[in-house]
Structures are given as structure tokens and as C-alpha cells.
């Protein structure tokens, strides 16, 4: 191997600094074979990193395979770096003076020659840049090594980032999930069925899907009763509000606070009609026309639940008219 060393350069640094009087030996290896091998190792490391990603995504994240692939990737990078350290970059032997703590004249002014005042000394910046550049002296296939390094970085980076996907499940249909379908009974917070006779005109009640988790966003409803002659429901919802009882998702379509405010005017001729209001940003939804927004930042109407009456209790006659909760990229605008 030693025959490969071509240069012996000593004291090169003297050209920059008159202050420097240290001893320096320097060899430039310039081994294209070592460079090729380094690049191959790095590319292989990139592949191993991508293998980790593939195993995470497709092989059911098998622990042994994951560990193996990432270990191979890391080991290949280690090998590449060790090889490069000994056979690609310049080999140096440099002498550095040790800072002396016990100097009697080591006073408050401090040693000035170590000072690198970034904004004051233009030359020191130049010198640091040069030291960095010199590190690649004698390396011939720089572009290949650069590409290999970048590939290894991408592979390892991908392997490092992909486990973040474990934080939460894929979106799938979960934002459209809802316990409401035909025949699901409405129950109060205490689990008792909601009785029609309990509700009079102007009543407001929070109801849940029987058997569903009350904390589930789509589970809770705002149930209100108005006079049937007030209703202005669209034709396809004509039978959704038996005896003037309406049910809406209790979660605002703006930023999913609970719609905990029902405004039922005693004298509707003189004040705006019955509406559900979200107390976070005051989005207001008209209950008479099926939950259309009349005030505030919400855009989508409040999803309405078609109701029917069975044995004097309220039962869903179908699913909610739209997706519950805040709008997001795949929410259907019309509901």
C-alpha cells in the first residue's frame, strides 16, 4: 500500500501564517481504487437504508430484518469512513503547541493569537476555509464521492425519519367514521333513551349514539325542538325532523369545539331565528333549514341526523348528512 503514497509535503501551512512555526508532515494518497471502494460502500449503505424503509413499509416491520438492515447501513458507512480516513484523504502529522495554564504572565489580556474575531479578521475566515479545502487535496473522484455521500445521507435519513410514521395511524376513513346509521338509538349522557315527550318546543339536549364512545367526535348530538310550522328543511330532508325535533352533530365544522349554545327566540318576529352557536369562534348555524351557516367563520353546514320516532323514543333514520368535525383536505364540501 505504501507505494501508493505519492507526495510528501511538509510545512505547507507556512505560506499563510508567519506566526506558525510548527512541524507538519503531509502525504497525499490519491488512490483511485480506495476512492471507488469508498463510493461503493456508501452506495451500499444507501441501499441498506432504503431496505430498512422497505421492510418498515412492506415486511410488517419485522424487528430482526429492521435491525439487520439499519446495522448493515451504519456498518457500511463506518467502513467507508475508516477507509477514506486512511486511504483517500491526505495523511498528516502536525504538531500543535499546548496551551500553558501555569504561565506567570498569563494575565487578563489573554492570548491574542487564538482570537478569531469573525467580524474583525477577514483573513481568519479565509484560512479556515482553506484548511477545509485542503482536506480534499489529492482526492481525484470528488464528484463520485460526493454523490455517494449524498446517497448514503438520503438512505440513512429516510431510515431515520420513517419510524415517525408509527406516531399515528394512516388517515384512511377515520375522519368520516361515525356510529350513526339507520336504527341507532339516541341516548342521554346517563345512557337513557331520549323520549320525545321530554322535549318541548325550545328544548335543547345533548344526546349520544347508543353503545358508542361518548368522546368519539361523531357520537355527540345537539337535539332541539322547534315548531313544525317554522321548519324550512330542504325537500329531501322533509321527514328528517319528526314533530319538529332536529338533531345535529355537536361538533363545529370550523375548529371542532362543542356547539353548546342553542338560541331559541321567544318572539321570532323580533329576533333572529333558532340557531346553534359554537362558543369558540361564534359560528352560527340555522337549525330550521338543516344547519346552514348564518354567521361566523365556519363554512360547511352542520351535519344533520335524520330522525324517526320508535315507541316514543328517538332513533336515527340514517347516517349524518356530512362529515363531523373540522374541514380537512379530503372532506366533501357539500354534505
Amino acid at each position, binding site marked *: 500500500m505504501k507505494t501508493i503514497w505519492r507526495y510528501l509535503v511538509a510545512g505547507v501551512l507556512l505560506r499563510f501564517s508567519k506566526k506558525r512555526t510548527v512541524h507538519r508532515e503531509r502525504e497525499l494518497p490519491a488512490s483511485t481504487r480506495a476512492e471507488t471502494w469508498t463510493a461503493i460502500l456508501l452506495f451500499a449503505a444507501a441501499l441498506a437504508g432504503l431496505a430498512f424503509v422497505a421492510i418498515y413499509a412492506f415486511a410488517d416491520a419485522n424487528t430482526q430484518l429492521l435491525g439487520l438492515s439499519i446495522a448493515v447501513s451504519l456498518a457500511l458507512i463506518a467502513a467507508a469512513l475508516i477507509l477514506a480516513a486512511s486511504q483517500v484523504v491526505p495523511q498528516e502529522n502536525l504538531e500543535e503547541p499546548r496551551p500553558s495554564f501555569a504561565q506567570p504572565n498569563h494575565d487578563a489580556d489573554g492570548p491574542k493569537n487564538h482570537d478569531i474575531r469573525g467580524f474583525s479578521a477577514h483573513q481568519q475566515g479565509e484560512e479556515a476555509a482553506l484548511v477545509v479545502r485542503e482536506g480534499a487535496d489529492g482526492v481525484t473522484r470528488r464528484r463520485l464521492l460526493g454523490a455517494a455521500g449524498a446517497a448514503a445521507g438520503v438512505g440513512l435519513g429516510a431510515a431515520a425519519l420513517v419510524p415517525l410514521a408509527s406516531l399515528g395511524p394512516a388517515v384512511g376513513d377515520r375522519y368520516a367514521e361515525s356510529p350513526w346509521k339507520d336504527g341507532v338509538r339516541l341516548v342521554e349522557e346517563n345512557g337513557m333513551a331520549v323520549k320525545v315527550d321530554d322535549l318541548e318546543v325550545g328544548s335543547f339536549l345533548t344526546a349520544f349514539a347508543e353503545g358508542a364512545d361518548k368522546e368519539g367526535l361523531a357520537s355527540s348530538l345537539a337535539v332541539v325542538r322547534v315548531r313544525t310550522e317554522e321548519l324550512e328543511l330542504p325537500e329531501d330532508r322533509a321527514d328528517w325532523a319528526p314533530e319538529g325535533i332536529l338533531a345535529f352533530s355537536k361538533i363545529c365544522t370550523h*375548529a371542532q369545539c362543542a356547539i*353548546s349554545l342553542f338560541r331559541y327566540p321567544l318572539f321570532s318576529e323580533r329576533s333572529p331565528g333558532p340557531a346553534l352557536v359554537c*362558543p369558540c*369562534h361564534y359560528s352560527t348555524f340555522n337549525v330550521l333549514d338543516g344547519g346552514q351557516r348564518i354567521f361566523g367563520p365556519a363554512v360547511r353546514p352542520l351535519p344533520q341526523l335524520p330522525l324517526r320516532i320508535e315507541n316514543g323514543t328517538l332513533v336515527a333514520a340514517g347516517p349524518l348528512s356530512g362529515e363531523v368535525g373540522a374541514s380537512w*383536505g379530503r372532506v366533501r364540501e357539500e354534505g
Partner: protein
Amino acid sequence: MTTRRLFRFLDSRTGGAGAIGKALRYVFPDHWTFLFGEIAMYSFLILVATGTYLALFFEPSTAHVIYHGTYAPLHGQEMTRAYASAVNLSFDVQAGLLIRQVHHWAADVFLAAITIHLMRIFFTGAFRKPRDINYYVGLTMLVLAVLEGYAGYSLLDDLLSGMGLAIGNGVALSIPVIGGQLGTLIWGGRFPGTQDFFSRLFFVHVFLFPVLIGTLMAVHLALVARPHHTQFRGRRRREGNVVGTPLWPAYALRSLGLFFATAAVLFLLGGLVQINPIWQWGPYEPYLGTNGAQPDWYLGWLIGALRLMPHFDVVIGNYTLIPNPFWGGVLFPGAVFGFLYLWPWIERRFTGDRAVHNLLDRPRDNPTRTAIGSAVFTLVAAVFFSGSADRAFVQFGVPYEDQLWGYRALVILLPIAVFFLTRRFCIRLRDRGAHPARESGARLVERPRFKGRSRGTDPA
């Protein structure tokens, strides 16, 4: 003398005496506005100390329990252990409520002190080279501090914090394309999320963000000390020197005094003025809400923006591309912080001033910067105040709907008015200065040069 022996002992082993000696003679310029950052730093120290104590009692668990503790009005209510442990911390841990309240007041003061510190930096041009990197570090700490505060009060799982998280989730979902997935990643599923989410929130609040903020604070201080402090113009003050009080002894005592004063104010408030009485709010469930829910003050500008925003989405076909909360919850704060991050570059680009500045501008010295900064801060302030319009309605009776329209007009008109008024005022003030010979507008200044560094001359 023992002091000398101590330093000799240290120096022979660490070589640090020289540095300490230098540090003791580090000069702090005398100006009271330079202390805003210190108030923030000392608030942070108090946050870390009180937070450490609180973490010994708080339980970040979403497991449900029935409350049977000291506070009778909550008896029999179902709640998470997180909320129950926070209530117990307030009622059953001796000194617990004091520490919790000090922690909360310290958070409010921390953010307020950062804000006025930022304004001082902005309006005096202290962000210019060589301190632009440090300005970015500081801004990043502000962003982290806002998120840290939000995570902190969200942890308690009371009614207000739950509503805040619901909105936070709605805002996350509103980010185009990635929003839905981002929401399920952070919350571990659909809102209200899983136990994982609470563990994450706790970890972020008590470890990740404090460590990040602490690290950045160390970097911030190092980058302040490296080029030394800025100073206002004045007798003997030049680009190449710093005139003021050395660290030892006067400034050290002064600064320590400020620390104890900050602590005194915070503990005074913590003991006497109630903050976030969570037992009065009750526990949160996704189907519960209260009127007049508000975030802590440093998020007031975001609730203001969400409420002020007219109702429109960007819709493609039947599908929402950009939902409404994006405008107020992401775009608005993004634009404000974007402006702050970009400002040093914008100023360099439009004035051509790339020189090193160690002497500060008085706000009047740069009327355009002062006017633009004032306009932006006015905009944020107007949006901020609009966030409390509902409380203003209850207290003062101006209808909420009218206020909303009023604020929408103010948000557009006020910054414009402030821009022109500030600019005019600055120019007049500057021209009335002690040097009548100075021509208005012209700032071509010839300054003595110091070895290797040139003081910038504004190309007027």
C-alpha cells in the same frame, strides 16, 4: 489572599482565570431597555424551577377517575387523572397552588418580556450584522416559547385547555394536503386522541422544548457576548468600543437584583392573584364547551385571527383544499413570523447596507423601519384585541357582531394610518434634533475607520 489562591488553583488546572478575569470586566452599556431580555431569561429560570416541582406531582394520564378530593363541587365528576392530579396539586399539595400559579404567571411574563425585548431589538436596529444570526435564534425561542406555553396549559385537561386542543387539532387539519395525516400523527388518531398524545404533550412540555429553549438561550448569550453588546450613540461611544458598567461588581449585583425583583413580582402574583383556577372550569369532554373560552394572552392574536376571518374555504370540485382555520391559525402567524425572520434580509436588500453595526439607531433615526415595524405590531395588536371582543361585549355591551366588523376595518386601516403617522413623527423628531445642520432625510455619515472594519454609510 484567598481569592488569589483560588484563582491560581483554578487557572493551573483549567486555564480559565484569564477568561474569568476578562468576563468580570465585560462591559454592559447602561440602558434600561437592555434589561428586557434579562427579565425573560430570569422568568425562564423560574419556570424551570417551578416546573420541576410541579412535575413531581402531575400525572399526564387520560385514564378516567371519579373525583372525591378536597374540592366539593367536583365530587362525583368523571375526569382524567391529568385533570384530577392538577386539582389535587392545587388543593392537597401544600404550596402546590402557589408554585402552579407562579409557574403560570411566569409563563405569561416570559412571553411578554420576550415580546418587548423583540420590539427593542427591532426598533433600534440591533438585529443588523453581526447580530442577525442571534436575532434568528431569539425569534426561534419566541416560537418555541409560544408552543411551550400552549402545551403547558393544554396538559391540565380542564374545560378551557380541552377546547384549545380541539381548535389546535382543527388548525392542524386545515393545513393543505398534509393536514389530515399530521393530525393523526400528532394525536395518535382522531381528536381527542389517545393516551399517547398526552404522553407526548407532557414530554414536549417538560423536556423537549425546555431543553431546546435552554440550549438556544445559551447560544443566544454566547452570540451576544462574542461581539459584545450594542450601544446607543453618545459621548465616547464608537463602533469599535463599548462604554458602560463592567460585570464586576456593579452590573452583576444590578442583574442579580433584577432576578430577585422578577422572582418577587412573580411570587407576589402567584400568592395574591389567582390564575387559571381549573377547579372552576371543570373537566373537559369533546362534547362540552363554555362561552367566552380564551387562550392565554400570547395566543390571543390567533383566536382573534380565527374569529375575524370571513368564512371562506378554497374548494376544488366537491373537496376542500384549504379549510378556513388555515387563514387565521397558520397563514397569519406564518406571515407575521415570516416578516420578522425576513426583515434583516429585506432591510439589507432595500437599503444596500451590509455593514457591521454596533451602534444602535434610535427609532427616529430610521423612520421607514420604525414605521413598518409599528404598522406590523399594530396589525398584530388589533387582531389580538379582536380576540377578546366577546368578553368586551359582556363587560361593555358593544354587540359582538358590530365589534367584529369594526375590527375588520381597523385591522386594515389602522396599520396604514400608523405607518404614515409614525414615519412623519419620526422624521419630525429627527429633524428637530440637537444638530440643526443635519439635513432632513440625508444620513450620509462619515465616521472614523477602525482597523479592518468600516462603519456603514447609508447610501441615501
